[in-house]
């Protein structure tokens, strides 16, 4: 596996990726951000919403209907997934930056979004290949929603729920470790 192979795989992978979820989510978040700016409302919930939705869109991009066919090729699944994430991330990152600039205030919430994405990818790595992406993409949505809904619970449970927002780099590190451990699955 070398850089040339990756470069050659980039174009067909770009064509194979389903871009609609990312474009739809980005468009809707831009509209929400614009409305919030006009109303001068607090951006907090939309930042959480945006981070979760963008993370889920990134995890959804791992879905590859041809994965069973490609299992025989020498490029490992983990490398193909990294390539997909890099390609989608190259679009998602500026899109998320645009959403963040549309929102009032200055919170970018890049690290929490990364933590949610990494968690989803880690879950996808360890699940059976037929249901991995759909379940894994639900993880960022569920985690962020639970944090918003149950934020008032306090204590250890409240701290654990908010970990992706308060200690995102730790979450990224743990998720990265899980991905590394499951890279041969």
């Amino acid at each position: 596996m070398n850089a040339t192979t990756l470069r050659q795989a980039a174009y067909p992978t770009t064509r194979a990726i389903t871009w609609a979820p990312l474009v739809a989510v980005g468009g809707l978040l831009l509209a929400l951000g614009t409305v919030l700016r006009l109303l001068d409302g607090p951006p907090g919930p939309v930042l959480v919403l945006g981070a979760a939705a963008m993370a889920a869109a990134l995890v959804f991009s791992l879905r590859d209907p041809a994965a069973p066919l490609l299992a025989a090729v020498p490029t490992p699944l983990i490398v193909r997934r990294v390539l997909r994430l890099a390609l989608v991330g190259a679009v998602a990152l500026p899109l998320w930056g645009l959403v963040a600039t549309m929102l009032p205030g200055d919170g970018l919430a890049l690290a929490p979004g990364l933590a949610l994405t990494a968690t989803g990818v880690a879950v996808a790595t360890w699940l059976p290949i037929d249901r991995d992406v759909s379940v894994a993409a639900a993880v960022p949505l569920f985690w962020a929603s639970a944090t918003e809904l149950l934020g008032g619970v306090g204590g250890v449970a409240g701290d654990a729920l908010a970990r992706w927002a308060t200690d995102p780099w730790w979450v990224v590190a743990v998720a990265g470790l899980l991905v590394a451990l499951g890279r041969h699955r």
Partner: protein
Amino acid sequence: MSATMIGERTPARTRPASPRAVVAALATAESRRHLRSPLLWVGVALSGAFAWVTMDQPDDWAGARYQAAPILVGPLLLVISIAVAGSFHRERLGVSEEAPVGEALRSTGRLVGALAPVAVVAVLTAAGAIWVRQQGGLDIGEEPGRTLHAQFTLPELLQPVVLALLAVAVGAAAGRRLRHRATSTLLLFVGWFPVVLVYWGFQSRQVIPLSIVQTQPVSLPVGPISANPLDFPASWLLTQPGEYQDHWARQFVSGLLAAGHDVWLLGLTCLFLAVALPRHRRPVLLGLGTLLAAGGLALQYAVIP
């Protein structure tokens, strides 16, 4: 297998089933699928935990718990929409075109089947209403205009059920018209999230009739900070000037306002169903939806002082 055996196992009846039987069979299968879905029960668990956290904490402001009650079913609305979108997304599979039953009947079966999770919402709402009654009611307002025994009116209790119907219609439209399930799931998440968790953005007297999840009481400014609250009618529930407002405000609660809102939501439901269902049903649903939505809005604006 011999020809004789095949002949014995082939059903003798060739008469086509009635549309009602087809719808009933499809609806039974769909409702079982919904009720067995872990997604629905994740929504129930999230709603239950949300309700527990909300009701267990002291009111941040007068009437906070009464106001928060309608949003407690928010997670359930989202999962209902996602589940119904999955159901209607199967219409997009090529195999549906080969099916011996037309899309109109299949869609009707799917919609009737989706009433199972709506029934779950109804049961949970009834349980919540019984709990509030057993508690002796909730707190609204501050002295001298305060009650500790506020109970939800019937139209207010119907709102979660009507919202669940709207969730079904929105999910059906998203599942039927969007190509990818991922897109519909994410759009439903991004769509439901603000109307549930940013409910305070739709509370002003001008906007609240247009809201999706309507929370009462509606706060109506009635006098400056220097006003004597005893001059206001004794029947009014009031909140004092303080952290959240610089004036005296009337806390307006109305069953008629909630009824108008239910009608508005039913109108929206019809409009989304018009998007989801086959073309020949659209004119009726569009007409009915527009009529109900306009009537519901007019009633609400007429009721709010």
